[in-house]
Structures are given as C-alpha cells and as structure tokens.
C-alpha cells in the first residue's frame, strides 16, 4: 500500500565474474540498472580506502565503458534468413541458458549451414522465376489465337511480309485504334500478359523502317519468340505446358531437399539463435557497466526488502564488493506495493503517471473512491453481478488480468449499492431498499452526491498537502491554492455558503470574511512569503509585475475550480437517477407490448443496453472525476517506474 523503499547498490567485482553476475541479476529480476560511469563521475562510487580496496580504487582511473559489439545484429539477420528459407517454426527460450558459444563460433556454424542451404534455395528461386516468366509471358500470349493454324515458322519464312509480337498498354492501343486507317499493317490481338495486351503485327517488308518507328512511338514492347518455338500457337502452348510440368517437378525436388535440411538443422538453428539472443541481451545490459583492467563496476536500484536475496547472489562470487548507499542521492525509481485488492487500480494510476519516489501512492484512495463513485452511479445487484462475472472471465485472459480485476471490483461495488437501493436488473420491487430509493428522493440524491464530492475533495487536498510536505515545497503546501491556504479557503466558503443555504449559522460572517481575505492574500503573495520563510533574497523573481498579474488572475481560477470541482460531483447523483430512468423507459415499452414474453424480451434487451452503454459512460465519468477533479489537486505522477532488467524483455 505504499511506495517501496529503494536503495542504490554499487558493486565492484572481478572481471572474470562479469557474465555470471549479470546472468544472476537478469534471472533475479530485482535490479534496475543505471549507468555506472555516471555514478563514478559523480563520485558516488566511494569506498573506504583500506588496504584490500586500494587496488580497486586505483583501477578506477583506467575506467571505460563496454564497447557494444554490433555483430550480433548480423548474426540475428543470418539466423532469421535461414529460418525463412528453411521455413522453420522456432521457439526461443532464453531463461535457463548459459553462454556456451562465442560469437565467432556461432557465426562460423551459421555460415556452414547457410552454405549448405544456399545451393538448393538459389536453384529453387531460379526455377520459380522461370516458371513465372513462362506463365506471364508466353502461355497467355497465345491464348486467343489457339485456333490459328499457321505455324510460327511459316510466318518467319514469309517473303514480302514481316511480323512482330509485342505488348501495348491501354492508352497506346487507343491511339493506334484512332489512327488505324493510316497504318499499313494488320494487328491481331492474341492474349493478355501481366504487362498489357499482346498483339501480333503483320506488315509489308517494304515499310519495315517506318513501322519500326511507329511502333516505337507507341512504346511497343517486343516479345522475341525463341527459335525453338516454331509450331502453331497450339503446339507452342503445349510445348510451354510440358516445360512448365518439368519445372514444377524440379521445384518439388528442391523443395523436398530444403524441407529435409530444415528437419536436420531445426534444433541446432534454434539453439544458435537462443545463444545469439542471450548474448545480445547480456551485451545490452553491459552498456550500463563500467570496466577497468581487472574489475567491473555496476550500479543499480534494488528494493530494501530484496537486500538479503541480492547479498546471497554475491556470496557466490568471492572478492566482490557490494555497497548499499540508501536512497538519498538522485531520484530513485518507484515500485508500488499494493495488496491484491488494490492492485488492479494501480493500472489506472500508472495510466496517468507513475508517482514520484517521495510522493504518496494514491492507489488506495483511488480504489476506494472509484468504487464508491461507480457504485453510487450504477447500483444494481443483478447488473453488478454481470460485471463480476465479466471481470472474472477477462481476468483469465492474457494481459487482461488487471483490467478484469478492476471490472470485478466495480461489479462488487455495484452489487453493494444495488442492495442499498433495492434494485435487481432494474426491477425495484423484488427486494427492499436498505437505504434509499434514488428516484423517489431526487433532491436527496443530488445533495448526497455533492457531500460525497466535498468529502473526496477534502481527502484529495490532504493528500496534496502531505505530498508537498514530503517534497519540502512550502510555496505550494502552505500558500498554494491546493495547499493549506486553499483548503482553509474552501472550508470557510463551504461553511459560509452552505450555512446560508441550509439556514444554519455555522460560521458568522465577521469571522468568515476575514479568513477568506487572509487566505486570498496568502495565495497572491505566496512567492515572497515563501522566500521570507526560507530567508531567500530577492523576494521575487525578475518579473515582479508579471508575477502579480498572473497571481491575481489565478485567484479567479481558484474560485472557479472550487465551484466547478464541487458542482462536478452532482453528476454522480444524476447518473444514479439516469440509471433508474433508463430502465423505466424500457419497462414502459414492455408494458405497452402487453404480452408476458414481449415484456421479458424488452427487459432483457434493456438490461443489455444499460450494462453496455451506461456501464461504459459511468466508467468514463468516474475516471474523469478521478483524473480531472481529484488528481489535479494532489497528484503529480512524475516518477520513473522501477524497471528491473530481465531475460524476458
């Protein structure tokens, strides 16, 4: 239920232990590494100068970072390539592995396998290309003239005429058509290929040159028919078909060969890739570590509670120096610890931002207040139960555990309020209300909502003041509009306004008004006041007039936000009413249908509609109240999440 206490850990170890230490750290998933070089430069790597340490400290002068070896990128590429060629379905597991091979060994082994695989794969590609070519170029080209009984060889042997075969695009074909009367040639459309329409052009040899120029101006792409095709188009087609059959057979042979190779090397490639991934992971982590000739220097954050476990790891490596420095320097990362009940709400908090290390964890407050708001707005025993079931189902799905848990808890809140309101699936006659029937007490409901809001706002202010105190922020904590001055102002105004509205004399005007004025002055003069307390000079920054203009205008905003913040909570009551009202509408439709079956169907549809649509709206409205009305008053969320290194990520 809090932010875990952190401590900075500095380690100096023997360089031969580095891989072992790193692997243990990765496995433990308990250390958030930071750059050791930076720690050294900031002189945080301070050790007692005793005889046994002196060697390590002298070595500090020859320190360097780890030069990342980018070769594993190449290795990964090679492996992936191999995987693709062989069509392997690999499954990398990195957690229980040791580094058994060096990069050189992996490289040479991968190369060997590549070489063996290369030959059939290249052949396969060439065969496929040839097949494609035959398909797109020749077989379609002769399609429309398959009843053409003249063999190509006869065309070739003509004495006064010549022929060409080639492709024209659509536009060019049109041009030709428009000017057909001026062209001394016969054009036959013979089929289609991937690039366009195929034509045979027949023309007198005497206009050869002219024809060539005209065709060129049309972007005619000639298809050269190889010498071996000399029969009729039909013969050529069957010639091509038999060639395709032969190619297909050869392709099958090569494919089988590759499949065999894949079977043979599958496990080995898998193992090699696991090694590469492990090495690359270690290399990545090593970027944070500093090295000297004999030692390595490592820094990272751990939680206080993991201290002993970490100590145990390093017991395995004699000669390793471990130093815990507490959480005083820098800005430690934040690790939230919440019990199972609050945990799902942590997800909502981190969606907004991670709390700073010295900020209160807002999760418990968020959990309770969000459940309260949701329950009030959506109180129904039956519909709440549907939420519980849905949440439990979602929680079993991968990556949805937290969201599912959240829905379950909201469902429980809804059920509790369902009991209080006496509502089951919208029907209010089945069970008695333990507390109040919203629709029968509209004004009370709205008042309750505002009181609830006031309570929540005051809690939020308290959180804010505690956070400011922890940050030693006098300006915001004492004089800010969310600090003590703001709270006193808010309470006084509540007492004055609320008193006169309720007809009670809670706070007499002659006390209340001076308090308001003092608070407002404190907010306006917060910077000079702070500087006076801290004994800082000058009292203002550079731009004094700018400061006051801004400050005075911020008063307006203060009033507005107090008012709007409070009134905003009316929606809680309003949605509680809407919830009943919506169902009333469906109930009326049900009555109008005037048959028992129809009535039940309408009520079921109504329930689905309310659970889906209104459930979503209430979920969002609750979130809005949290993020906008409450968080803005107390929560900054500027922290960095504790992110331990691990093998998985």
């Amino acid at each position, binding site marked *: 239920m809090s932010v875990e206490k952190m401590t900075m850990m500095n380690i100096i170890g023997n360089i031969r232990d580095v891989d072992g230490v790193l692997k243990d750290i990765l496995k433990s998933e308990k250390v958030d590494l930071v750059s050791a070089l930076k720690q050294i430069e900031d002189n945080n790597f301070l050790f007692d100068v005793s005889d046994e340490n002196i060697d390590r400290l002298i070595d500090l002068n020859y320190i360097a970072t780890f030069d990342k070896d980018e070769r594993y990128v190449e290795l990964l590429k090679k492996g992936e390539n191999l995987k693709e060629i062989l069509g392997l379905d690999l499954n990398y597991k990195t957690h229980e592995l040791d580094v058994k091979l060096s990069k050189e060994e992996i490289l040479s082994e991968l190369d060997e396998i590549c070489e063996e695989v290369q030959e059939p794969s290249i052949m396969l590609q060439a065969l496929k290309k040839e097949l494609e070519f035959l398909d797109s170029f020749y077989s379609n080209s002769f399609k429309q003239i398959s009843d053409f009984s003249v063999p190509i060889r006869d065309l070739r042997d003509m004495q006064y005429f010549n022929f060409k075969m080639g492709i024209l695009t659509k536009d*060019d074909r049109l041009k030709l058509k428009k000017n057909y009367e001026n062209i001394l040639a016969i054009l036959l459309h013979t089929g289609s290929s991937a690039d366009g329409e195929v034509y045979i052009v027949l023309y007198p040899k005497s206009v050869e040159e*002219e024809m060539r*120029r*005209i065709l060129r101006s049309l*972007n005619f792409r000639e298809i050269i028919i190889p010498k071996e095709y000399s029969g009729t188009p039909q013969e050529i087609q069957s010639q091509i078909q038999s060639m395709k059959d032969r190619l297909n057979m050869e392709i099958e042979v090569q494919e089988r060969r590759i499949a065999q190779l894949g079977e043979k090397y599958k496990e080995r490639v898998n193992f090699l890739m696991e090694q590469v991934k492990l090495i690359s992971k270690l290399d990545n982590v090593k970027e944070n570590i500093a090295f000297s000739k004999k030692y390595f220097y490592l820094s990272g954050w751990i939680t206080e509670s993991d201290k002993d476990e970490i100590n145990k790891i390093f017991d395995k490596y004699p000669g390793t120096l471990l130093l815990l420095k507490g959480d005083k320097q820098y800005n430690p990362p934040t690790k939230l610890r919440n019990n199972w009940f609050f945990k799902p709400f942590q997800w909502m908090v981190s969606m907004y931002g991670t709390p700073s290390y010295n900020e209160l964890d807002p999760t418990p407050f968020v959990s309770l207040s969000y459940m309260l708001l949701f329950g009030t707005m959506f109180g129904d025993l039956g519909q709440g139960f549907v939420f519980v079931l849905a949440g439990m189902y979602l929680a079993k799905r991968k990556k949805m555990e937290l969201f599912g848990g959240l829905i379950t808890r909201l469902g429980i809140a809804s059920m509790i309020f369902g009991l209080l309101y006496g509502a089951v699936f919208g029907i209010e006659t089945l069970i008695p209300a333990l507390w109040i029937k919203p629709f029968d007490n509209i004004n009370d409901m709205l008042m309750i909502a505002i009181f609830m809001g006031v309570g929540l706002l005051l809690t939020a202010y308290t959180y804010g003041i505690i956070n400011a105190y922890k940050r030693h922020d006098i300006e915001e904590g004492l004089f800010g509009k969310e600090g003590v001055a703001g709270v006193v102002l808010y309470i006084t105004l509540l007492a004055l306004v609320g008193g006169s509205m309720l007809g009670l004399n809670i706070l007499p005007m002659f006390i209340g008004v001076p308090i308001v004025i003092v608070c407002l002055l404190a907010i306006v003069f917060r910077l000079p006041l702070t500087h006076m307390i801290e004994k800082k000079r000058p009292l203002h920054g550079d731009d004094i007039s700018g400061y006051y203009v801004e400050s005075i205008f911020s008063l307006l905003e203060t009033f507005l936000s107090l008012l709007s913040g409070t009134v905003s909570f009316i929606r809680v009551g309003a949605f509680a009413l809407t919830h009943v009202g919506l169902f009333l509408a469906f109930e009326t439709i049900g009555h109008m249908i005037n048959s028992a079956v129809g009535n039940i169907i309408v009520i079921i549809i109504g329930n689905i509609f309310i659970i889906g649509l209104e459930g979503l709206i209430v979920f969002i409205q609750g979130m809005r109240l949290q993020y906008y009305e409450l968080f803005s008053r107390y929560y900054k969320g500027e922290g960095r999440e504790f992110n331990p290194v691990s093998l998985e990520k």
Partner: protein
Amino acid sequence: MGNERRFSAINTKIRVMRSRFLKDEDYIALMEKDKLADQVLYLRDNTVYGQMLSHIDNIDDVQQVELQLERFLIVQFTKILKYFSDDYEKFYKSLMFRYETEDLKLYLRALARGEDLTKYEKVSFIKNEYYSFSYEKIRNSKNLEDFIERLKGTKFYDVLYPYRHENYQKLLFYMEMNLDRLYFTALSESGQKLSRSDREIFNIFLGENIDLLNIEWIYRGIKFYNLVPEELINYTLPNGLALDYKELKKLCYGSIEDLKIYVSKTKYKELVNEEKDLDLFMEIRIQRHLFNTFKNSFKRGKLDVSISIAYLHLLEFEIKDIISILEAKKYGLSYYDTKEYLVRTIKGSDE
C-alpha cells in the same frame, strides 16, 4: 476538408512569398551590370536568392549559380508541400516529379556524351527522399543499359527500357519524349483526385499547357525532325483544352502553312505571329502566354489551387529569366537583345 480550411493558410503565405519576386528595377539593374560576377553579387546581396547563393565559393561558376537558383524553387516547393496532406500532397509531389524527369534527362545527356555520372551531385533536389529512384544507385551506372537496369522497379523503367539498344543520338530524343509524356500522365492522373472545383481549374491550366506544347511539337516535328505523321501524332500529349485528337491528327498530316493558318484562328494566335522568327520565338511566346495566365490567377485570388500552382510557375519563369540574363552576359548580348528573350516583359520591351 473544405477549400477554406485547406488554402487559407498557404495562400496567405504564398502572397508573402510572392512579394519577394524581383521588381522590374531588379531586372534592369541586373542587365546593366558589366560583368557576370557583378550580376551574381547583386543577386546575392539584394534579392531573396541571396541565401541560396551564399553557399557558393566561386561566383564565376555560372553552372553552380544556376543550380542554386533552381534549388531555391525546390526549397519553396517543399515549404508549400508541408501544408497539404493526402491527395493534395500527392498532387504537389507529382508537380515536383517534373524535376525528377529533368534530372534523368540530364543524366541521359551526360551518358550520351560519355561522361561519368559521379561528378553530378544531387541535381535538383537537396534531399534524397524526394527522388522516387535511388539516386545513389544510378549515379554509379557505367553505361546506358546499366543505367536503365538500375531504374528497375520505378515507373521510369518501362518507358526507357525499349530504347536501351538504340544509338545515342536517336535515343535521347525518344527517351526525352517518353519522360515528358510520363510526367504529364502522372500529373494529369493526380490532378483528377482533387476536389471538383480544383480539378476544373487544374484541367484548364494543364489543358492550355498541353495545347501549347502540342502546337510547338507539331511545328518542330514537321519542320526539323522529319517524322512520319503517325509518329508525330503518337507523341502528342492527350487531354488538351482547345485541340482534341481529331484536330491534332489533321495538323499532323498537314503542312506548316496549314498549322499556321489553323493556330492563327485560335486563342494561341500570338504563337504564329510572323513579326519575329518563329523558330526562335515560339518557345518564349508559349512561356509568356502561360506567364500571363498565372499572373491573372493572382488577380482573381480565390481560395483554391490556382494560387499555389501559379506561384510555382511564376517563380520558375523568374528563375529562367535570371538564368537567361546571366547567359546573355556570358555571350555578350546587348541590353535590348537580352530583353527579347525574357519571359517577363519589362519597361521598354516592345511585346
């Protein structure tokens, strides 16, 4: 998105950019300088081009100066590009596509001369990302065949491929024709995706441009290139505004005189005004015609594509003019002769 939202920011920006065009006085001052170096210094110190020219170490190097001026246009292009998304962004990119084709033409000519491509730095564009081909890849081509092979996978490949075995002289002509055609097709396609009102404006711009180019093409084709009419018509560009395929076909199968008579009856009649040598002045007249069209768009000042298209073209003409002025100095042309070859008509110019 409505045109109000799409164009209000960029059109305002373009008005500011346009206010930095050279004044007539700048033109005159440039032409009156005695030496090329003085002209370049004037550009550097007094005009918006100064920024680009300050990178040059040798101001006597006309080629360098010209390249920097052209790059200024690309810089403005990329500024405008940032204001658009989706189909409009694609449209402006396809306008830029022209500079890619121009660069390719430059490479082709260099290859024809047997030069080494590595000495050409990124020509028009400053950044590689604006090229649809890999600039690094083609720069190392050894010969034409190699060059075309390296363009494989781009849209240039299909149009250049059939010519790879031709002899250089002929092939340059055909390749350039095809590159131009590719540009116009791509531009026209991307223009059809604009909103309806913009599409209409664009089709008029493009249609006029195509008419003018077709007239010039047929004129030169008949007069100089000695092409068969079928070739002539096949190389004309489609989607003209006033001249459709049927008219073009008639012109292609006719004579120079027929062409002149026909054109003199259209709104492009100043093209065939025989007061000056047609061979020399047709091109400049085409540019002047377009120049005036674009200038009028600024006068209309509507919130649509016209302003940005017009700005880019006016800037292009201005840069062309500056280059003409610099070249004229190099060849020793007089003040009055120089003026004849400028797109913009300035005081004292007779047209």
